[in-house]
């Protein structure tokens, strides 16, 4: 809401420094968003009257003028094509400051000039502010103004303050409402608006027109006045300037008056040409099936049966609260007016204005819910201004159809509860002062207060506390820290701590954390090779997305990880290692909400990155999470991954009720991205990724650890190398070795795999380092030898292994 300062000053004395005023308003809840000083940079520019005008002796296009500037007559040379003798123009005197610079006395082809006639642009004003300004040339005042008047005064160049008005305070979408807030904030009295209507036309409004409300739920009140002998013309400067400063274009006296009253009091008004209202009857009703209306902006609007319209006895003449119809609007020929001042249901107006795509100054106000008590006051103010401007004669009386339902209008001021909620010690008398200044009527004995009709936001003690607090200043409330409250345990849950473990482990393994969007394009499934009927294609669809690329909630994080890797790759970054902890969303039949599953996604390419690097990170994670029972199985079915270089991770998860209380569950995959997917996603040829279900990992994880004593007896190290067929898995060999060795085997690890000239085609040599140890004695060579024999026999038997 833009409020010209001088308009505010009609209702409240603002004597403090503007900065202090702004601060007082912001800190009491009317946040100042900006301030525009229209006269900024303009000095010594006055109204001048051209007394004489002659051709320049040495230049065709220049004129030499004698200009009365009040105190003297100065000679000015001008090239303006649009001025003539007798015109009043803005004249920048010698020494004047304009946004474009300072004015000096100069000589044009031998003729001296002591000033410059100014155009709108030279005064740095907009054409909206001075709509009567010529396209080209100097601004000419069309009203009589005393020469010598400061142009800032003549053009009402004011400071305009822009307030942010919160949705609960439609009463502040008005100069008067803001003045009321200003008065309380500054601690000065509000100058009440006194309205006097002469009603010179006599008669009775109800003889001219009648009103019928069909939907009192959508229109609780409709009030109207009649004006005869209307003379359409421009409104005076002061009114035009105030409207323009507040952001509205001046149109003609009647429209300007209705807009002026809307800005001043917050009540939107509309003027109908009564001669165009069939049957002289206003009917407020919902639109009928198929009705259309051409609104004042010339657009044809299709109405639906939820929309409230203003109709006469035959047809709609306006969309209620949004915009009037062209068929009933005022024109230069209009002689009799019906002035509408109504109250409409905010929700209905909001929906209609949204459907029609019109957000007018009127609809913006109505949709917040206005005070039904103000309709008559606004009509009276309108009538007063019409009389003041001589724009018409006001008929006696008001046609008022008031079907307002009574609402809560009293509340008890419980000072103790207000203080208890705020943590303050504000005396009840001070609260009473605040509420009285806010125009509440307070009974000092019972502390019952009558809520002003424009404050429908006040319902309970919390609302009262806010009123008190904002004029007490929130920042004067003494800070406390839940003093006297029972202390509480603050702690992360096990799940939250385990997620921290995951993040920390990832970072320790050199993985950097990524954040990617949760919505994506349905096209991403193709890029990772998913078949057309793949279950992951079943996604939650956003009904109003920001575009196709962001139209579904993701069911897999792989495309996002690959996109991030590809972005880094395209920027010539040699190595990238990333992880993300984030959700995917799977629709669930018969449920409003989908299943949200948290995934851990890993991705890497570049130096040192291969399958076993990735697997190493996963193994480290298993150790950090305390997951001991897990295994990797070759995974050939996942279409996004290289079938020969991918494993699934299976972990043992406790499940009550099954034979040994656990199940081995697949919790994710890790491997090299399928070459086709890598190509489609523009990732490097060797790109590695992994995806795990976090909930399952956490389910299998534990913070419990048990100490094992450090070894006291020496270890006996042995190596064994066997040749086996290529297809034999190392994991199976290790399992067999462990089983055959028995308890003495402390550790077995693969240290070499060799294929080449000394090993037959289709075979590989695998070498293992074994460590034998007993916790309670030094092992004898013979024992270890026997174990080695058992191991070899077992490998020969199970895998046709040959000792190398």
């Amino acid at each position: 809401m833009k409020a010209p300062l001088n308009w505010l000053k009609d209702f409240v004395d603002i004597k403090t420094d503007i900065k202090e005023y702004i601060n007082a308003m912001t800190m009491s809840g009317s946040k100042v968003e900006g301030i525009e000083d229209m006269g900024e940079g303009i000095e010594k520019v006055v109204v001048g009257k051209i007394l004489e005008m002659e051709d320049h002796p040495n230049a065709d296009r220049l004129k030499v003028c004698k200009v009365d500037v009040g105190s003297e007559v100065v000679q000015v040379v001008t090239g303006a094509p649009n001025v003539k003798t007798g015109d009043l123009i803005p004249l920048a005197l010698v020494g004047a400051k304009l946004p474009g610079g300072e004015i000096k006395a100069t000589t044009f082809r031998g003729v001296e000039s002591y000033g410059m006639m100014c155009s709108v642009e030279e005064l740095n004003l907009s054409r909206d502010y001075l709509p009567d300004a010529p396209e080209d040339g100097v601004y000419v005042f069309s009203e009589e103004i005393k020469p010598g008047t400061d142009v800032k005064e003549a053009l009402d160049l004011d400071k305009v303050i822009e307030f942010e008005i919160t949705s609960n305070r439609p009463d502040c979408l008005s100069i008067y409402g803001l003045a009321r807030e200003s008065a309380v904030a500054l601690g000065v009295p509000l100058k009440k608006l006194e309205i006097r209507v002469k009603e010179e036309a006599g008669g009775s409004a109800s003889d001219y027109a009648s009103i019928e409300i069909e939907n009192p739920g959508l229109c609780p009140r409709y009030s109207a006045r009649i004006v005869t002998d209307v003379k359409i013309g421009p409104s005076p400067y002061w009114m035009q300037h105030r409207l323009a400063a507040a952001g509205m274009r001046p149109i003609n006296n009647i429209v300007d008056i209705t807009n002026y009253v809307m800005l001043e009091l917050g009540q939107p008004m509309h003027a109908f040409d009564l001669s165009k209202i069939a049957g002289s009857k206003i009917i407020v009703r919902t639109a009928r099936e198929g009705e259309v209306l051409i609104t004042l902006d010339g657009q044809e609007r299709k109405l639906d049966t939820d929309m409230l319209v203003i109709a006469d006895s035959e047809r709609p003449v306006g969309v209620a609260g949004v915009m009037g119809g062209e068929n009933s609007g005022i024109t230069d020929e209009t002689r009799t007016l019906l002035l509408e001042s109504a109250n409409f249901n905010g929700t209905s107006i909001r929906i209609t204005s949204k459907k029609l795509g019109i957000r007018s100054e009127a609809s913006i106000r109505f949709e917040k819910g206005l005070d039904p008590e103000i309709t008559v006051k606004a009509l009276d103010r309108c009538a007063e201004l019409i009389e003041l401007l001589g724009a018409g004669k006001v008929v006696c009386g008001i046609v008022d159809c008031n079907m307002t339902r009574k609402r809560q209008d009293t509340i008890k001021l419980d000072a103790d509860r207000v203080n208890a909620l705020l943590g303050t010690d504000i005396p009840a008398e001070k609260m009473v002062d605040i509420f009285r200044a806010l125009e509440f009527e307070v009974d000092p004995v019972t502390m019952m207060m009558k809520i002003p009709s424009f404050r429908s936001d006040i319902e309970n003690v919390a609302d009262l506390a806010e009123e008190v607090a904002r004029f007490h200043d929130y920042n004067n409330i003494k800070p406390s820290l839940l003093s006297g409250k029972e202390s509480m345990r603050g702690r992360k849950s096990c799940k939250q701590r385990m997620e921290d473990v995951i993040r920390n482990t990832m970072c320790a393994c050199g993985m950097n954390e990524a954040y990617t969007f949760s919505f994506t394009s349905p096209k991403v499934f193709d890029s990772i090779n998913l078949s057309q009927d793949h279950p992951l294609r079943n996604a939650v669809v956003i009904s109003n997305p920001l575009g196709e690329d962001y139209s579904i909630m993701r069911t897999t994080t792989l495309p996002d990880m690959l996109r991030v890797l590809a972005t880094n790759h395209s920027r010539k970054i040699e190595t990238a290692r990333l992880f993300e902890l984030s959700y995917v969303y799977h629709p669930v039949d018969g449920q409003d909400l989908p299943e949200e599953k948290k995934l851990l996604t890993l991705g890497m390419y570049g130096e040192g990155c291969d399958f076993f690097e990735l697997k190493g990170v996963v193994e480290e994670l298993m150790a950090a999470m305390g997951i001991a029972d897990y295994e990797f199985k070759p995974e050939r079915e996942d279409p996004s991954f290289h079938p020969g270089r991918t494993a699934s991770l299976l972990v043992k998860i406790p499940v009550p009720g099954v034979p040994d209380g656990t199940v081995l569950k697949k919790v994710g995959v890790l491997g090299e991205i399928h070459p086709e997917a890598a190509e489609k996603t523009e990732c490097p040829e060797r790109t590695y990724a992994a995806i795990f279900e976090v909930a399952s990992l956490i389910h299998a994880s534990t913070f419990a650890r048990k100490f094992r004593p450090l070894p006291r007896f020496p270890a006996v190290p042995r190596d064994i190398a066997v040749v086996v067929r290529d297809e034999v898995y190392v994991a199976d060999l290790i399992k067999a070795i462990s089983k055959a060795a028995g308890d003495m085997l402390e550790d077995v690890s693969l240290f070499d795999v060799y294929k080449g000239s000394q090993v037959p085609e289709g075979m590989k040599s695998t070498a293992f380092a074994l460590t034998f140890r007993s916790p309670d004695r030094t092992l004898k060579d013979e024992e270890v030898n026997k174990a080695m024999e058992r191991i070899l026999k077992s490998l020969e038997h199970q895998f046709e292994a040959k000792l190398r």
Partner: protein
Amino acid sequence: MKQQLESIRKEALNKLVTITDIGELDDFRVAYLGKKGELTRILKGMGALPPEERPLVGQLANEVRNALEAGIAEAKNRLVRAAREERIRRETLDVTMPGRAKKLGRKHPITIVLDEIKDIFLGMGYEIAEGPEIELDYYNFEALNIPKNHPARDTQDTFYITEEALLRTHTSPVQARYMKEHKPPIRIICPGRVYRSDAVDATHSPIFHQVEGLVIDKGITMGDLIGTLQVFAKGVFGEDTRIRLRPHHFNFTEPSAEVDVSCWGCGGTGCRICKGEGWVEILGAGMVHPNVLREGGVDPDVYSGFAFGLGIDRIAMGKFGIDDMRLLFENDIRFLRQF
């Protein structure tokens, strides 16, 4: 023989000082003290001496042996020291050369800020509550005193899935759910991802992250809210940080406030970050609206509470001086590794 011994002593000790490496010293030992060494050879000839001279010569021979051994030990010491010094001199490094990179990964700046915020509130006895990102209209709006068709819904730019399901526009629904499941006293923060239909640019993102807090107990005051926010602001932005509350309107709180912190760029004198204001708006807060308490099954005549909410992304941007929101979701390694 006596003369022989004396001359060996003299000759050997003179030779010893000229020895410059350990191998030479070994040879020297062998030459004099070895099985075939000179001293041994002389001692072997002792049998030929008259018996009365033997003790004297024997004593002298021992003295010579001891003198040589002591000399050898000393020379060894000297040589080892010299060798060590030589080695130290030889292997001196240019310590200004770069260290071998240990590539630890980094947490995302949003995680870093979130962890900091969690720490502050865990320390004040809060728990961390979580809830779904795809939420029922009821929890996102209605339970928070924002009925259907309320104008406040327009400002939230909601992504809808169906009439009833939407992408949560704030983490407040977690509070609404928590209230229904827990009795006061309640002290929680709810971090999480939220969605608003804003096009992506340098200062807007349709996806961002919030932390909201909720405290409900008997006798909670607005002073408690202010004190809590002070602790929070100092914790995140530094001990000198001041906060300022301005009255505002939110449907789920009353009284409501917008909260500014003194600018981290200039400390309050005005700079580019705060657009000359000296203050930066970072969060919204207020006393929980009685309707919200009631909807959560809490009696507003017995209990009161406060709630607050802030955007983590913007705080991370402010704290680290990140000037483009898109960087947070682009995940350029060179960006991520700065934190």
